[in-house]
C-alpha cells in the first residue's frame, strides 16, 4: 500500500520518472533545509521541513554570508538506503545553465549538503529570477531514480557590492554591423543672404563709377591717343580684354593647356603694343597734358 502510494505521488510529481510497476522507486524523507547567516547565533536562521517527495512552496533565499544546509534521508521504496547519486541540481530557468552539487551520503541513506554563494558559478550570482533546485536521487539497479523540484533558490545580493560578471567567452559568430558615419557636407548659407551680398558687391561698381564722375574722370584723351597711335592703343586694350576673357573661359570651361598658348600670344601682343601705347602716354605727360 505504501509502495503504491509513493508510486502515485511520484508519477504526479516527477514527469521524468515514470515508475515501472515492478521496480521500487527512489525518494526521500526527513528533508530539512536551513539557511544560517555567518556570525548570527545558531538557530537564528530560517529552517524549513520539506514534505516527503514534495517541494517547498516558498523560495529559499541565500544571502552573501549565508550557508544553506540541506539534509535528507534517501529511500528506496520505503527503506532507507544509500543512493549512489544524491545531488541538488540548480538550473537557471532563463539560460538553462545547470550545475549539481552531490550530497555527502552515509550508508543509512542520510545525506547532507552545505552550500554558500561561493560555491555557485559566477553566472548564477547575477540572475534575476530564482533558480530552480531539483533533487536527483538514483542508484544502480532497477529502482527508478527520483527527479523532482524541491524549492526555488533566490540568490540575494548585497546592493552595495557590484555583482561579479562572468567574463565573455570568445565565440565565433556574427559581429555587430558597423556603418561608417560620414562627416556632414558643408552647407551653404541661405540663398537669400548670398543674393543680398552679391547685390552689395556688384553695387560697388556703380559706386566706383559715380565716384570717378564726381572727381571729374573723363575720356577726353582717347581721341588724342587714337589719333597719335591708333593701332597700339586699340591692340593694347584689346589684348588686355582678351587676356581677361581667356581667364573667364578658363574659369568656365577651358583647361590650363588650352589657355597657356592663348595667353602667351595675347600677352606678347600686349607687351609689344603696350610699350608703344605707353610711350604715347609718356609723350602726353611730358607735353604736360597729363
Amino acid at each position: 500500500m505504501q509502495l503504491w502510494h509513493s508510486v502515485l505521488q511520484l508519477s504526479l510529481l516527477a514527469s521524468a520518472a515514470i515508475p515501472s510497476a515492478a521496480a521500487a522507486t527512489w525518494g526521500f524523507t526527513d528533508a530539512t533545509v536551513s539557511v544560517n547567516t555567518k556570525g548570527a547565533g545558531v538557530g537564528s536562521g530560517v529552517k524549513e521541513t520539506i514534505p516527503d517527495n514534495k517541494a517547498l512552496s516558498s523560495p529559499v533565499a541565500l544571502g552573501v554570508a549565508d550557508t544553506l544546509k540541506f539534509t535528507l534521508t534517501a529511500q528506496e521504496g520505503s527503506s532507507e538506503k544509500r543512493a549512489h547519486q544524491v545531488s541538488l541540481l540548480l538550473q537557471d530557468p532563463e539560460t538553462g545553465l545547470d550545475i549539481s552539487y552531490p550530497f555527502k551520503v552515509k550508508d543509512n541513506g542520510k545525506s547532507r549538503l552545505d552550500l554558500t554563494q561561493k560555491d555557485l558559478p559566477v553566472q548564477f550570482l547575477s540572475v534575476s529570477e530564482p533558480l530552480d533546485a531539483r533533487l536527483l536521487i538514483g542508484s544502480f539497479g532497477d529502482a527508478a531514480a527520483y527527479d523532482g523540484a524541491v524549492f526555488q533558490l533566490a540568490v540575494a545580493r548585497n546592493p552595495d557590492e557590484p555583482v561579479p560578471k562572468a567574463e565573455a567567452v570568445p565565440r565565433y559568430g556574427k559581429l555587430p554591423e558597423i556603418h561608417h558615419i560620414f562627416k556632414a557636407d558643408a552647407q551653404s548659407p541661405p540663398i537669400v543672404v548670398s543674393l543680398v551680398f552679391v547685390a552689395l558687391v556688384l553695387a560697388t561698381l556703380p559706386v566706383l563709377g559715380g565716384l570717378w564722375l564726381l572727381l571729374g574722370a573723363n575720356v577726353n584723351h582717347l581721341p588724342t591717343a587714337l589719333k597719335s597711335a591708333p593701332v597700339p592703343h586699340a591692340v593694347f586694350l584689346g589684348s588686355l580684354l582678351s587676356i581677361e576673357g581667356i581667364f573667364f573661359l578658363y574659369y568656365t570651361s577651358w583647361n590650363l593647356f588650352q589657355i597657356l598658348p592663348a595667353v602667351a600670344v595675347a600677352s606678347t601682343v600686349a607687351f609689344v603694343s603696350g610699350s608703344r601705347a605707353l610711350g604715347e602716354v609718356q609723350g602726353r605727360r611730358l607735353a604736360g597734358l597729363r
Partner: protein
Amino acid sequence: MAPKGSSTPCSGVTLKVRPCVAIGDAIRAHTGYLARGYDLVFESPKSDKLSLFDLGEKAYDHLLILPPRSKGFGPALSPKNIVNFINQDGNVLLALSGKSTTPSAISSLLLELDLHLATDRSSVVLDHFNYDTLSASEKHDVLLLQRPGQLRPDTKDFFGGEGVLALPRTAPHTLGDTALLTPILRAPVTAYSYNPKEDLSADDDVWATGSQLALVSAMQSRSSSRFTLLGSAESLQDQWFSATVKVPGSEQETGTANQEFAKQLTAWTFKETGVLKVGKIEHHLAQADITAEDLNPAIYRIKNETVFSIEISEYSNDKFVPFEVPANDALQLEFSMLSPFQRLKLEPSSRTENSTIYTTQFTVPDQHGIFSFRVNYKRPFLTNIEEKHEVTVRHFAHDEYPRSWKISGGWVWIAGLWSVIGGFLAFVFVWLYSEPTSAKTKKTQ
C-alpha cells in the same frame, strides 16, 4: 598491421584513410561506417613501421585513433606528432573509452587543445535517468541520448536527425574557453561522472556535472584542420549500430541511430561536410556597365559607391553545392583600415549550380588611406574563410569637386573676384585716357 582475426574489436588501431578501397577484417566492427571509398591502413599503435610523416610531409590524410589494449601508444603517436599532423592539415578522430584508463599521452594531447579529462582519466558518465535498460540495467553506463540538435540558433546542423544514440561507457571531458572548440554532444543535466575503479560515490571532489560534461566535441584549428573527440569508442561498433535499446519508464524498444551518427561524425571530421570554398571575388564601382577593366580596381575614391561580391561553395559529401548562410547568421564584409570602417551583411544575389554569390553595396568612407576588403567568416563546424584584398582610397582629385558656381554660398566671392577684375579694366581705361581737370595739374607740378 593489426593482427589478423583479432577478436576484440576495440584493440588500439590507427588507420590511414584516403579515398579508395579496402577494409581489413580486424576492426571491421569499428569501421563499417567508413565504407565509402576510403583506403584504410591499419596499424598497431606500437608498430615500428608506423609513422605519421613521410619525409616531413604527412603520410596520411586522416587519422582515426581508437583506445589501445596496451597501456599506451608508441612514439609515433606522441602528442607532438599528432599536433604536427593537425598543423599539416591532417584530420583526427580520437575515440576514448571509459572501459580503460586513457593513456597520459592522450591526456596531454587533449590539454594542448584545451580539452580536459577527469584527473583519474578513467571516469565514466552515469545517468540514472537516461540509460539503456536492456544492456545496462544494473550499471546504468549505457547512455541513451537524442541526436544532437543545432548547437546555436546561428549554426549549421551537421549531426541532427531522428533517433536515439547509445553511448556505452563514455569517458567524459570538459571544454576550455576557446572559440576553436565546439561541443557536439553534451551529457544530460542528470548525468554525472564516476570512476568505477575507486568504489566511492561521486561526492568527494566535484569535477564537472550535468551538461558541463561533454561526450563528443570538435576542435577546428585556425587552418581549418579538424579534430574530433568521441567519448565512447564502443558506440562505433557494429554491435551498437544494430542494437535495440529501451529507456527507463518506456515500454517501447527502439533501434539506435549510431550508424547514421558515426557517418555524420566521420564525414565532418574528414572534411566531407562543412567545407567552404571561395570562388571569384569581385569589387567594382556601382555602375551599370562593368567591363573587365572596371573589375577589382586597385584604387577607389572616397565616397565612391562600391559593389563587392564573393562566391562561396560548400562541399557536401561528394559535391560542391551553393553555400547558404544559416538563419540568424550573417556573412559579413569589413572595409577596414586598422579597424573596420564598415561591417556589412553580404546578401545572396545569385546562385550557380554549385555556388552562391554574396553581394553588398556600400559607400567608401570619407577617409583616404590603404583599406582592405575583408571577409572573415569563422563559424563552428565550417571551415574558415579569411579573405583580404587591399585597395587604395584616395581623395577627390582637384577636378572632381563641384565647380564654384554650383555652390550658392560662394557666389558672393565669385562676384567679388569679377568685380575686382571689371574695376581693374575700368581703372586701366580711366588711367590711360582721363584728362586732368586743368587747375589741379598746375598746382601739383
